[in-house]
């Protein structure tokens, strides 16, 4: 693990023990789950948790789809984390709040549009308008955030902008709270053709839409980063900002653009959130933000495809994990622990593979 090849200390032994214990628990849970699925009365299943009830195939599929849809949103938010991290090297904690602001913008505009009567008559157009507005608001928020809070701190020790971003996060959260009040901000009613279960695998239309939009956004972002001049500049700044500036790249502009693109992605995710859950609160950004960060880490931070894969992993893990691993192990009320599962995934991934699933660089090489 360490750059220096030192002899293994007690801490290393403890970590190895933790790794093995975590993987063994997961393995035991999975085995018990499979054993129950095969035959609820086989000895292993009875030994693990006799009361556990196995899932039907339909329920299993629904859980996977719900997890994927949730995970796609984590992935979209994680892109923002990942890009900023790649370019600036610090976690922008407040990115989750940008996402929340996008969702709130969508709620306000959609309910205003519904009041004007346009929402029902012209749903697709209105939706596009809402998405556009939300992207604009989020982009502006992200850019202002960068300008006010992060740019003056460029070059400071890494913890300073990190702490600042925590402050920005709580400020934005409460900014929305005091302006718009503590109540739930609801979206206007979605048309039935969107919400009903489609014949295709009986999956809800909104979930299909979420997955599709996430895929499109991913491809667009990939194109931007890998195939355009801006993307090239971004990658250059990520590699080494100083040398990039010597090469004639306006580093400040690239950083602003990075924040803008991340913000826009968060705006899209915010609207998808609204479509899926119909309502949003001022606190809606914090936990998804943290989970999205976990997704970015799990996928290997700085890696676009990895972020999406990490998001899907976290989404599916917190959807399936409680019932597939915890309940067979005898944990009662496992669904209550789903946030704990999401964090546990992060911890275990960092324990077992600190660079994330798709990460290339070992994070310890730039440890501060």
């Amino acid at each position, binding site marked *: 693990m360490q750059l220096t090849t030192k002899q293994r200390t007690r801490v290393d032994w403890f970590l190895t023990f933790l790794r093995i214990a975590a993987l063994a628990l997961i393995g035991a849970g999975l085995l018990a789950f499979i054993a129950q699925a095969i035959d609820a009365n086989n000895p292993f299943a009875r030994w693990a948790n006799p009361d556990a009830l196995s*899932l039907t195939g339909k*329920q299993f599929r629904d859980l996977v789809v719900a997890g994927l849809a949730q995970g796609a949103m984590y992935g979209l938010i994680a892109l923002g984390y990942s890009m900023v991290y790649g370019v600036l090297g610090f976690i922008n904690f407040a990115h989750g709040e940008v996402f929340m602001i996008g969702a709130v913008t969508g709620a306000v505009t959609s309910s205003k549009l519904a009041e004007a009567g346009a929402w029902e008559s012209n749903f697709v157009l209105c939706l596009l308008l809402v998405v556009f507005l939300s992207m604009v608001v989020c982009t502006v928020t992200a850019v202002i955030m960068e300008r006010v809070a992060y740019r003056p701190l460029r070059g400071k020790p890494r913890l300073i902008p990190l702490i600042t971003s925590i402050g920005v996060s709580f400020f934005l959260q409460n900014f929305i709270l005091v302006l718009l009040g503590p109540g*739930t901000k609801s979206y206007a009613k979605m048309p039935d053709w969107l919400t009903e279960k489609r014949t295709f695998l009986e999956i809800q239309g909104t979930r299909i839409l979420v997955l599709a939009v996430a895929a499109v956004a991913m491809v667009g972002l990939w194109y931007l980063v890998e195939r355009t001049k801006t993307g090239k500049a971004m990658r250059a700044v990520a590699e080494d900002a100083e040398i990039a500036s010597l090469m004639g790249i306006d580093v400040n502009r690239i950083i602003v653009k990075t924040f803008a693109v991340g913000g826009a992605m968060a705006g899209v995710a915010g609207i998808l959130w609204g479509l899926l859950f119909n309502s949003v609160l001022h606190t809606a950004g914090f936990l998804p933000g943290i989970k999205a960060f976990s997704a970015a880490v799990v996928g290997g931070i700085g890696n676009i495809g990895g972020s999406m894969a990490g998001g899907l992993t976290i989404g599916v893990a917190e959807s399936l994990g409680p019932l597939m691993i915890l309940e067979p192990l005898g944990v009662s*009320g496992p669904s*209550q622990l789903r946030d704990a599962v999401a964090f546990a995934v992060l911890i275990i991934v960092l324990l077992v593979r600190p660079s994330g699933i798709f990460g290339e660089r070992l994070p310890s090489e730039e440890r501060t």
Partner: protein
Amino acid sequence: MNRFGFLKRSRKNRGALTVLLAMVAVFSLLATSCGNDDDDAPAAPEATAAPEATEEPAAPEPTEAPEPAPDPRGDALGDGSLGVVTVPEGESIQIRSLNAISGPVAFLGLPNQRGVELAIADYGDIQGFSVDLGTPLDDLCSAEGGQAAAQTIVADEQVIGVVGTSCSGAAVAASPLVTQAGMVMISPSNTSPALTSDFEGNAGESYNVGYYRTAHNDLVQGAAMANFVYSELGISAAAAMHDGDPYTQGLAQAFSNAYEEIGGTTTGIVGINKGDTDMVPALTELATGSPGALFFPIFPPEGDHVAAQAPTVSGLEGTQLLAADGMLVDGFLELADSEGMYFSGPDLRFGTNVNQGTGRNADQILDAYQAAYGELPSAAFWGHSYDATTLLLDAIAAASWVEDGDLHIDRAGVRQYLNAVSGYNGVTGSLSCDEFGDCASQKITVIFHQSAANIEASKNNVVYAYP
């Protein structure tokens, strides 16, 4: 800087510091032991008899006749065992409101506080003395907040009683403080059985003598819902859901216990977290038990998500959804998802009930509410709060007398009156206090929500009343 000097200095100071530390320790120990004795000393000039805050208050003795008092006392209740508060001529009788008036729970606490304000305005003076509510206090819906606010209350020894708290968690910390200071506490919206009793003669673990409430006990609502589901709907397997809040968890548990007692099977109780949106995992967990009914006594917005997502979960398609008063808000009833659901809650058919303290009925109070605050109450407990206040004021009236132009209020008399309350007419119905302070009418109704287009009709569509 000279490194050696630095080291030397620190070594030299070590001795001094140890001595200082020891001194601090001794001082603080001494002071702590003295502190108890001094605590009430400055209070002596304030009240004619300083309340013995640290002593266990006398047990309620409702049957004891008022002692043969000197003439001016008249037939005022009380034996003076908890002290007598004197309100000098020209000053006001002090009571307090302690409700969750800020943050996300303000929707519950604000109507409570306003109920108190309206009741005081309607009640008028007591023996020529006006009633002062002071600054409204906030229980922050937490134990710490409740305790801090209670300290503010008991610091003023003129205070007779408190209407509050909004949240049971705050009451757990506030009620021992308030009641041990000889004051009474009447809550309009605590429902936890731990604060009063289990109705079988066992005091709850957080019960304090001097605590009363005009809200129902969770056990009643749990039993009402259990009976309704089992007997009226004929469903013999049900599940429950809570959101980790003490109120919702307690109610879900009470429902489950009552349901099992009458012969039903609880297939599962699942907790979700505040702020959750994706309910599919939790609902799937419940679906594995194939319940015929799902009772989720939680609040929006989590409740909205449950109602919207439950029908899409395989295994819950035909499950009857039921919620409690927390979901009985217009925003939710207007959603199509809520159609066909049952809601339990305290009996809100106030109709022509008249509060005997002020002679007002619910419509008059609501008119006054709207006139004063520009909106209708955001939660159901304004009436309970109104009744709690008039109960307190009536108790003060019954335990007070005027002597030399000053008003004297016997704290023990206030409790004596409240303990003996029976068949008191309030806007929420007929109130009778049991020996553990449960004063509510304990009437629970279940309504059926037919159509999102006509929510007013649904609110009055009572299909079941308990008991």
